[in-house]
C-alpha cells in the first residue's frame, strides 16, 4: 500500500464516519447537556428528560453527551470542545466542579450560557439547579426513621466520605431532626463507606456487633443502603431494624423486597434533565429566574432561588421521590 492509497483510505474512512453520523446543520440554538459519564443508568434516565424537552420545544435543539469514562479530565475536554464549537448553552452535571471553573469562565466570555446541576459551590455558572435542600432531605430520612422506630432507640448514619458535602449535610439534617425525639439516641454517626458497598457492609456488621439493639440506619451514598441491607439480612434483623437512605430503585430492589431496606429516596434524573434544559432555555430567551416560579415539572412547581457563590443563582426544588417495596418497580434505573 503506498502512502497515497493509505492516506486516501484514511480520509475516506473519516469522511464516511462523519457522513454516517450526519452532522446536521442546526440553525436553532443548541442546548447540550454534559453528564458525568455515558452509559450509566442514572444518566440514561436523564437523557430521557433531555430528549423530552427537545420534543416539547421545537425551537431549541437538545442533546446529551458525556465521557465514556468517569474522569473529570475527559469531561473538561468535552466541554472545552463545546465552547470552541460555540453552542448556545451548556447544561452540566460536573464530575468535579472545581476542575471546571476555568473552562466555564471561557464559556461565559464567549457568550455561552451555562447552567449546572449538583454543583452549588461552582462560581462560573448562571444557575445551579438542586433537586432539593440537602438539610431538609436529611430531615425527611430521619422523620421516616423515627416513624418506623417508634421514636425511640439507637440509630446511626452513613456518608460516602466526610469529604462529600451533600452526604454530610444529609447526616447533619437527620441528626438535627432527631433532637425532636429525646428517646432516639444517635450512635457512632457518619460512618464512611467510601462509596463502596462492601465497606458499607463491613461497617454495618461492626455496628451490629457493637450495638446489638440498634434500630435505625440512615444511608448516605446511593450504595450505603445496599451494604447495610446485606448486613441486616445476614443478621436476620429485617423486622427489627429500619433502614432508610438515598438509593437507586433497581440496585436496591432485592433488599426492599426482603424488607432489609425499608425505604429509599432519590431525585428523578429525568426531571432534573428536563428542568436543566428548561432553565437553560429561559436564560437563552432572557427570562428572569424568579423565586417561587413554576417550572411545570413535579417537585419544581415552586422553586426557591437564592444567590450562588459567584454571579449566578442557585435554584432549589422539592423534587424528592420516596419509594418502598410497593412502587420501586416504576423507576427503571
Amino acid at each position: 500500500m503506498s502512502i497515497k492509497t493509505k492516506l486516501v483510505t484514511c480520509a475516506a474512512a473519516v469522511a464516511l464516519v462523519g457522513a454516517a453520523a450526519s452532522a446536521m446543520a442546526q440553525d436553532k440554538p443548541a442546548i447540550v447537556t454534559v453528564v458525568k459519564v455515558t452509559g450509566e443508568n442514572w444518566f440514561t434516565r436523564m437523557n430521557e428528560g433531555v430528549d423530552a424537552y427537545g420534543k416539547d420545544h421545537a425551537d431549541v435543539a437538545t442533546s446529551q453527551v458525556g465521557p465514556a469514562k468517569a474522569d473529570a479530565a475527559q469531561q473538561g475536554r468535552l466541554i472545552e470542545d463545546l465552547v470552541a464549537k460555540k453552542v448556545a448553552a451548556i447544561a452540566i452535571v460536573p464530575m468535579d466542579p472545581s476542575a471546571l471553573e476555568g473552562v466555564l469562565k471561557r464559556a461565559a466570555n464567549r457568550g455561552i450560557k451555562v447552567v449546572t446541576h449538583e454543583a452549588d459551590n461552582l462560581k462560573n455558572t448562571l444557575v445551579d439547579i438542586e433537586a432539593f435542600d440537602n438539610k431538609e432531605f436529611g430531615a425527611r430520612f430521619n422523620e421516616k426513621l423515627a416513624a418506623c422506630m417508634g421514636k425511640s432507640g439507637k440509630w446511626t448514619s452513613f456518608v460516602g466520605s466526610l469529604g462529600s458535602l451533600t452526604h454530610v449535610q444529609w447526616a447533619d439534617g437527620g441528626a438535627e431532626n432527631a433532637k425532636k425525639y429525646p428517646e432516639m439516641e444517635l450512635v457512632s454517626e457518619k460512618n464512611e463507606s467510601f462509596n463502596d458497598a462492601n465497606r458499607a457492609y463491613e461497617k454495618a456488621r461492626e455496628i451490629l456487633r457493637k450495638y446489638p439493639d440498634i434500630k435505625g440506619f440512615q444511608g448516605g451514598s446511593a450504595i450505603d443502603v445496599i451494604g447495610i441491607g446485606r448486613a441486616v439480612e445476614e443478621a436476620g434483623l429485617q423486622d427489627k431494624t429500619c433502614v432508610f437512605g438515598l438509593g437507586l430503585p433497581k440496585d436496591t430492589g432485592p433488599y426492599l423486597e426482603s424488607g432489609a431496606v425499608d425505604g429509599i429516596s432519590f431525585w428523578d434524573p429525568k426531571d432534573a434533565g428536563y428542568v436543566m434544559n428548561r432553565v437553560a432555555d429561559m436564560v437563552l430567551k432572557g427570562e428572569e429566574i424568579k423565586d417561587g416560579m413554576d417550572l411545570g415539572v413535579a417537585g419544581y412547581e415552586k422553586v426557591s432561588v437564592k444567590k450562588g457563590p459567584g454571579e449566578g443563582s442557585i435554584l432549589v426544588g422539592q423534587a424528592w421521590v420516596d419509594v418502598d417495596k410497593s412502587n420501586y418497580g416504576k423507576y427503571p434505573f
Partner: protein
Amino acid sequence: MKGALADRQLSFLALTNVAVLLAAVLLTGSGFIDLYNLQSMASQVPELGLLALGVMLAMLSGNGGIDLSGIALANLSGVVAYLVLRDTVSADDAPLVFTWSFAGIALAVGLAGGVLNGILVSHAGLTPIIATLGTQLFFTGIAVALTNGSAQTLGYVEPLDDFGNTPVLGVPQCFALFILIALLLGIVLRFSGFGIRLRLLGSNPKAAHYAGIPRRRMLFLTYTACGVLASVAGIVIAARTSSVKWDYGSSYVLIAILIAVMAGVRPEGGYGRVICVILSATALQMLSSLFNFMDISNFFRDFAWGVLLLLFLAASQIDLRAWIAPRH
C-alpha cells in the same frame, strides 16, 4: 535505510493530521479552523503530550520499558505544591511568587518520584511495568491521604491561569512550553551522546553492555526524566483546571501509551521520534475534538482510536517488511 523508515512514519502521521483537519472542515465547516478552536485544541494537547513523551522515553530504553505512574505523579506534584503553598504564600498578595514556587515544588516532587522509579528499575532491577504500577498506586495513595480524596481549589491565580489559558502571539503558553520541551528532548535524543547510547541500549542491551554503556545509570536518568516530564504535566493541569485532585485524568495512562505507539515508538525499545509523538498527539486531539463537534458518542471515540491504532500498527508492519526485505 533507517532514515527512509523514519520519514515514512513521519509523513504518514503528518498526512493523517492534514486528512483529519480536511475532514473536519468538510464535515463541520470553518468553525473548526477558526483561531479560537485551534487555540483550544492546542491547549488541550500538552497534558497528554508530555505524558506521552515520558512513555516514549521509557519505551526507548528497552527492557520492556514503560512508565505507568505518569499521571499519578503529575497529580501528586500538583497536590503537594498546593498544600505546601496554601499556608505559606498568599496567591492574592504575591501571585507571581506563588506561581513560580508552585512550579518549583511540583518539579521537585516530579524529580523525587522519577528518582524513585529510576532506582526501582535500574538498581533494584524490577520490571518497569511492575515497578511503575507500584509507584502509580503509591503516588495516588499519598495524594488521596494528603487531601482526604477531595479536590483542592487554587482559585484564580493570574500568572498561573494565564499560563494555562491565555495565548501569547496567538499561541497558548502551555502549548509553547510543550513544543519547547519536545524540541529540547528531540535534540538531546538525536545529537547527544546520552541519546545515542539510550537508543543503542534499547535496541540491543547485550551489545550495549559489551560496548560499555552504563545500563543502570542510563535507566536511572531516563526514568528520572519521565518523572520530571510528568510534573510539568501536573503544572499544566493545575493551571488549566485551577485545581488539583488525585484522580484527575485517570484515563490518561492508556491514552498516553496509545499516542506513543501510534507515533511509531517501538515498545520493545530502541526507536522513537519526538516529532512523531507530537504529530500523533495532535492527530488524536483533532480527531477527538472533531467527534465532539459532531456530537458523536464518546464510546465511538474509544472505538475509533482503537481502529486508528490498529491501522498504524498494520501500516508500520508493512513498512517494516519492505525495509527488511532488501537487506537479505
